[in-house]
């Protein structure tokens, strides 16, 4: 037993609140993200009620939303606020903070063989900025005019002018402040992750032996460090336009019976800045999920991940390309068509590394010995949704086609299948897989099965029909569609979609119950329940400061020696020295 283990008794505050320990911080991120996720899912159920059965009264809406749903019918402004906050929470708080924050924190030190992050203090700050950012975002729901309502991208001038809509008042200011804090959190975290991975790998853990999770977290962190500062610029300039009378994004505006004293700014400038973050952000969300699924799929297929080098290469390729494609969100802003062509080209290039990844996953399954743990189910679901959602990206990347489906339900379908399903599946896979590592107990497998099957059926049930709604020409962010005859019968799909959404949301209770129940009463975990090769399973079940009781483990091989015929067991931990004459990766 090492010296760290009983160094001194920690107080409750330093152990559970202001902890510097990466494992505790990771749990803090996860629980915060789950709470935020519950809020965001509930918001989506509320607005799906309105979209499925427009104008009908639902008592539940009045119970939860009060004056925003007088008589149980959702208010128009409140509808936009719900849509906006749902998107914001899901993209930033669940899929960025929650996904990357939880698993980068948990796995980076454990899988590279480090005692903790490079800076435990910065890591703690990262969580607390995230926490206060979350609190402010939630508080913004309770402001007088309601929360920010211009969509999660908060394009000015709509978001810059309080007179444009009620949600552009105090709620919008809080949104912007929350976002600045969020970016601080993300930068503190990201820098820490990169530094830790580069400097603190244990002996023998060369870059080419890193598990793919770590590669994914590193590329994610680099993307975040390079792109989030640009969001801060965008947000700060917007704050200045709102409060100090500047006109970075405003020009020639007449609103509320008044010609504003603004000239020379451009609303399009904001969009360039926003999407310079916004598109890498899509991959900040997705790459950790892909990293997690690589690990889970290899472990449970009992096979090496197919094409390790190609997987790393495609991660790097996607990461690089993600910086030069942001303009595909702006084909219809009046951007020069030639510039548009360049973005068409770069965007479609991303399909190549993505295709490589998809085929590599599938080949990993081929002739495997697949153990369907809940984590494995979600990882396979991830591959399916990654492909299904990714393919429609080809349509949206083609500017000539985007003109017709831009900002329609087709887009909603596309990014929800990629982010709302694929990335969320990655996160859930991660939770099921590393729950024993986080809490020392097992989650219930049967409930996990039920959770997966309800979620994939309902997820596709919600988002797949939306493609057809979108191609018929239904714009997103509409409060109702009854004013448009041309949509005709395709609107019959709306109640179906809402039904799936509600059932899917209720199905998450399988998970929530399982998660919180198992923290306290789950079956006690053994040290390496999944018979996995990576280093985190060589640490004791009980959490100790510094992760390993004795000296740090030494690594002798890559993470994917599953079913290696040279060995008898179907897994060979990274700490196993090479047999005489064995060629190790």
């Amino acid at each position, binding site marked *: 037993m090492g010296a760290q283990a009983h160094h001194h008794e920690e107080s409750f505050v330093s152990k559970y609140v202001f902890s510097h320990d990466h494992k505790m911080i990771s749990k803090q991120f996860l629980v915060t993200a789950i709470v935020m996720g519950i809020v965001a899912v509930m918001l989506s159920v509320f607005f799906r009620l309105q979209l499925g059965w427009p104008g009908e009264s639902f008592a539940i809406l009045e119970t939860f939303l009060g004056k925003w749903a007088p008589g149980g019918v959702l208010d128009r402004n409140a509808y936009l606020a719900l849509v906006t906050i749902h998107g914001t929470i899901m993209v930033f708080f669940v899929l960025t903070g929650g996904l990357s924050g939880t698993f980068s924190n948990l796995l980076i030190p454990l899988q590279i063989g480090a005692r903790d992050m490079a800076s435990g203090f910065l890591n703690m700050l990262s969580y607390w900025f995230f926490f206060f950012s979350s609190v402010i975002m939630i508080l913004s729901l309770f402001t007088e005019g309601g929360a920010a309502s211009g969509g999660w991208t908060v394009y000015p001038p*709509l978001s810059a002018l309080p007179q444009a809509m009620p949600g552009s008042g105090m709620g919008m200011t809080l949104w912007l402040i929350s976002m600045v804090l969020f970016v601080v959190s993300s930068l503190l975290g990201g820098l820490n992750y990169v530094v830790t991975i580069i400097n603190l790998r244990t002996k023998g853990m060369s870059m080419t032996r890193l598990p793919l999770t770590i590669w994914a977290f590193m590329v994610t962190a680099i993307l975040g460090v390079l792109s989030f500062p640009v969001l801060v610029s965008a947000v700060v300039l917007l704050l200045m336009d709102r409060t100090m009378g500047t006109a970075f994004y405003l020009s020639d*505006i007449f609103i509320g019976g008044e*010609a504003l004293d603004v000239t020379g700014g451009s609303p399009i400038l904001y969009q360039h800045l926003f999407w310079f973050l916004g598109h890498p952000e899509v991959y900040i969300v997705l790459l950790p999920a892909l990293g997690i699924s690589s690990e889970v799929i290899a472990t449970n297929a009992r096979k090496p991940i197919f094409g*390790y*080098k*190609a997987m790393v290469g495609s991660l790097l390729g996607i990461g690089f390309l993600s910086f030069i494609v942001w303009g595909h969100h702006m084909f219809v802003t009046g951007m020069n068509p030639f510039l548009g062509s360049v973005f068409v080209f770069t965007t479609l290039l991303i399909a190549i590394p993505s*295709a490589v990844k998809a085929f590599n996953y599938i080949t990993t399954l081929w002739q495997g*010995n697949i153990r369907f743990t809940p984590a494995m189910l979600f990882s*396979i679901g991830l591959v399916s949704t990654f492909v299904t959602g990714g393919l429609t990206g080809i349509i949206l990347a083609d500017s*000539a086609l985007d003109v017709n489906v831009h900002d329609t339900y087709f887009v909603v379908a596309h990014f929800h299948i990629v982010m709302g399903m694929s990335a969320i599946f990655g996160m859930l896979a991660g939770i099921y897989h590393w729950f024993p590592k986080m809490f020392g107990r097992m989650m219930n497998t049967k409930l996990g099965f039920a959770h997966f099957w309800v979620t994939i059926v309902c997820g596709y049930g919600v988002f797949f029909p939306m493609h057809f709604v979108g191609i018929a020409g239904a714009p997103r962010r509409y409060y109702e569609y009854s004013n448009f005859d041309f949509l005709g019968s395709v609107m019959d799909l709306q109640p179906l979609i809402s039904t799936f959404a509600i059932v899917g949301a209720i199905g998450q209770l399988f998970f929530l119950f399982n998660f919180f129940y198992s923290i306290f009463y789950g079956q006690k975990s053994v040290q390496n329940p999944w018979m996995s090769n990576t280093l985190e399973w060589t640490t004791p079940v009980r959490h100790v400061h510094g992760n390993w009781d004795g000296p740090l483990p030494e690594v002798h091989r890559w993470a994917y020696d599953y079913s290696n015929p040279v060995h008898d067991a179907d897994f060979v931990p990274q700490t196993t020295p090479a047999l005489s004459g064995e060629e190790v990766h």
Partner: protein
Amino acid sequence: MKLLILLVVVLGLVAAVQLSKVYQLSISLRGKREEDISEADNRLNGGLFLAFMVAFYVSFVVLLVKYGSYGTPPASEHGVAVDRLMDFNMAIIFVVFFIVNTLLFWFSAKYYHRADRKARFIAHDNRLELIWTVIPSVVLAIIIAYGLQTWNEMTGEASEDALRVELYSKQFDWTARYPGADGEFGQANYNLITPMNALGIVTEDGVAAALTEIEEKIAKVEEEINYEKGHLLAEWAAIEAELNDDHGHDDHSHDNHGHDDHGHDAHADDHGDGKQALEARMAEIEHMLESDKVNILTEAAFEAKEDKLYRLIRHRQRIQEIRNFDFDGELTAWESGMDDQIVKGEFHLPVGREVEFVFRSRDVIHSAYMPQFRAQMNTVPGVPTRFKMKPTITTDSMRTVLENPEFDYVLLCNKVCGAAHFNMQMKIVIESQEAYDTWLSEQGEFIVKEGSEEPEMEQASAQKESQTITASL
């Protein structure tokens, strides 16, 4: 009721926890562990993947048959090309979608875990990997080339004789503007927007009318500020205090002989006039306080009024700048707006003629989306945008095609712009050139006339000023 629901939820939760504990105890007694997935469970999940795949494909086909028609057929020339490109891309996507999902679910079902098997150890295969790098690259190259070709055709320059129509967006409606007989749009400036001139078109009368309106607003706010009771009372009290104070000051200076005599005399003269003026002002204030224009404002509201006054004065200044500088040497710019035609509610276009839309926005970003024409462009305040298209099917023909006598083409807003975003629409009518000409001739020309109730003097001075400018051009 709420209490009851809460009770049920709490009891349900307790029951679930207890049930789970019992379940867990039972499997522990049998020595089972959560991570041991039985062969039956593995087979079940594998089978479920296959079942899911079949159900997924069947629903896909049903959706495709029922709703896969892209809404309405394309009603523009480029729309046909867009739909063809869409079909091409969709075909590729379908193939990949089916192949990949089938392999994924099939492998999942086939290779479920069995204790007596060992997975095949295969870490990579350069030939295979090369294949699935090169094939997607080639396919994408084709997609890119075809897509960009269509894109270039869509976004090229509009032809010389294209009809030009301006679409103007504001919360929450659309206005269309036709350039009139001269084929030129009059210039527009957001500072000139008045109820009479919703698009802010620059004409001599337009500038004058905007000035008149702003003067009125300034006068009104000034009046509100001048007649604020608290400030009037404070001013009155201050004058009274000053008068009293001056009295004392006079006494004091009498005691100091030889102290700057000359200055003192001057002061005394001033003082006499000043005193008179102050007394006059006091009387005026007293009179004002009795008028019914008196209002009471909080300090914050008063400051807001002062801010507003400042902004209005800036606005007036900007209008004056337009008058002075914008149109130096370009007499036509004053005139070309006069015959512009402005329509609301619906707008018409001739079939078979290219039209170039110019988009402007008054307040926030909107997006002009015409789904039946496969056309969309954002409207951005301060940044005009363009889109060209050639309608190919008249409204009547489309009604016949769709067997729907109620059908209408529609322009709608597709960028969230506020509470009524979802109902910001305008009807589009495509008709023969003759019908279009008739319709257009029925639309009045745009001329801003000042309201008759304007004070004569202002009107005259505005006229005089504009004459001066015309002369100087």
